[in-house]
Structure formats: structure tokens, C-alpha cells
């Protein structure tokens, strides 16, 4: 592999800051949610957890029929 170098050139991204952030963070979009009061953050997390539990229940049988077992929530 010596003597070979790969570079990625991005031309005029429409949302430059976010693209760079996306690349810099290891290809995942990360949202900075550290400035909201902890109570609101915790409330949203609780709601999201409850909603994902319900979605898990909706899909469980279909996943089982496909030959898998849906892991339980962390």
C-alpha cells in the first residue's frame, strides 16, 4: 500500500458546518443538547423510552416470525 494516498474533496457543501461536523464526529450526526435544563432532557428521554417500548411491542411478533428475537431495552 505504500505510495498510495486517499483524499476526499468536498465541493461547496450546502451546509458546510454540519458536513464538517458530521465528518469530524466519526460519520454520525451528533446534536449538542447540553444547554437544556436537565429536567426537560430527562423528561424527553423518559417519553422517548416509553415510546420505543411501545414500538418494540408492536414489532416483536414480526421480528420473531423473521427468525429473530428483538433484544429487550437496555
Amino acid at each position, binding site marked *: 500500500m505504500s505510495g498510495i494516498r*486517499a483524499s*476526499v474533496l*468536498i465541493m461547496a*457543501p*450546502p*451546509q458546510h458546518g*454540519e*458536513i464538517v461536523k*458530521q*465528518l469530524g464526529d466519526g*460519520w*454520525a*450526526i451528533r*446534536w*449538542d*443538547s*447540553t*444547554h*437544556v435544563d436537565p429536567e*426537560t*432532557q430527562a*423528561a*424527553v*428521554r*423518559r*417519553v*422517548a*423510552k*416509553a*415510546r*420505543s417500548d*411501545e*414500538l*418494540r411491542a*408492536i*414489532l416483536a411478533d*414480526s*421480528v420473531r*416470525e*423473521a*427468525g*429473530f428475537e*428483538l*433484544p429487550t*431495552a437496555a
Partner: protein
Amino acid sequence: MSKRWERLGVEALFVDHFADAAQLLHEIGLRRRSQESYEPIDARAARVIDGLERTVFEIGRSDDEFCRRQVALSRWLRTTLHDVMRATLGGSDPPADERFALTLWMLGRTGTTITGWAHSDRAHQDQTTIEALPISSASEWVAVQAVCQGVLVERDRSSPVSRWRYVRGLPVIFDSPTRLPIGCMTISSTKPGSESVLTALDASRTAVLHDGLLGAVYDVLSPISTLFQTARDVRHSR
């Protein structure tokens, strides 16, 4: 342009969309780490999307099963949107004069189309009438633009045939066990962006709203994606 680079000893590869640059870098790293066991993204994505189509949307099942799942997903999206928004607003209900919709879009198996499979404001009743949109950077659809750009996209809409005046698209990208873009979630409002509570939220509260909505989906769909990504011997349903 490729010829000019070639003269300098550089092989230029062009990607179709901005979002592809991040995926290309990921694939190069994955290929180096995985060595001979590397599986190209088109094969991984096709298997995962096939699995999600079957287990989440009941595609390819009977009409009754498909319709029941549509109603269940529509209710789930509607309640999720309401509850997460209410929690984000500190326990207050969203404005009564503004209506919202949440839609879950998924790429087709070849990555060339995207389909809005589940909507909070309606439920599909006939699989054969659902339109798959071509993935093109010139598309007017916010969901397509979000997938092409790989980042949040928001646009005011003005169409005499649609009540939705403002749409925000959030790409849905799984991280584990490998990076895999699978679609998009859109939040729509009956008000233009300048009047919507969606744009009135400060940046950090907006981030919490997005975290809550995406998190509720990721917590379930990402493990399903992992099941299908790691099971190479799973046969496609059609």
C-alpha cells in the same frame, strides 16, 4: 476531469451526493478493518432494508396485515410526536392552531428511491399505490434532500394541494455494527417556518426534540438493523 487527475497519478472517484462522502470514508475504513470479510454497502443495505420492510412495515404480507400495521404505526407516530413535543416544551401542549405530522421514510433496496411508509396523519391501505420517490439532488422533496445531503434540511413549502407549509427532514443513519443510512424522518407543520413553534425553539431545545423523536425510532429499529446486518445467510423475501 478524471483524465486530468489521472495524468498526475491520482484516480478520482466522484460521489453522487454530499452524504456519500461520509459513507465512502466509512467504507474505506471498514474495508481495511474487515479485510476479506468486508461486505459492500449495497449488499448490507439491501438485506437490512428488506428486513425492515418485512418486520416494520409488513410489506409483502397480506393486505389485512399491512393495513393493521399501518394503523398501528400511524398511531404510534402521532402519539410519539405529541408526547416528545410536549416534554420538549416543558409539559405544555403544542399550540392548538398549529398541526404537525411525522413521517418515517425508508430507502429502497437499491438506494435509488425513498418511500414514505408511515405517517402520523394517515395510514396507507394499498401497497400498490404508494409512490417511491427517486433519489436526486434536484428533488423538491425535503426527505430526498435530507438523504442526499446527510444533514438536517428544512424548507418552507407552498403547494395548493398540500396543507403542510414547513417541512424539516432528519436523516436516519444507524451506527452499529456498521454505518448505514436507511432513510429519513420528516416533521411537517401547517404553518410557515417563520410562524412555527418548530423554529421558535432555541437550538438546544430543538436538539432535544430531535433526539427524542429519533431516539424513539433508533432504540428499536437499530437493533433490528443489527440483526439483519449480522445474519448474512438471511434470504430476501422477494
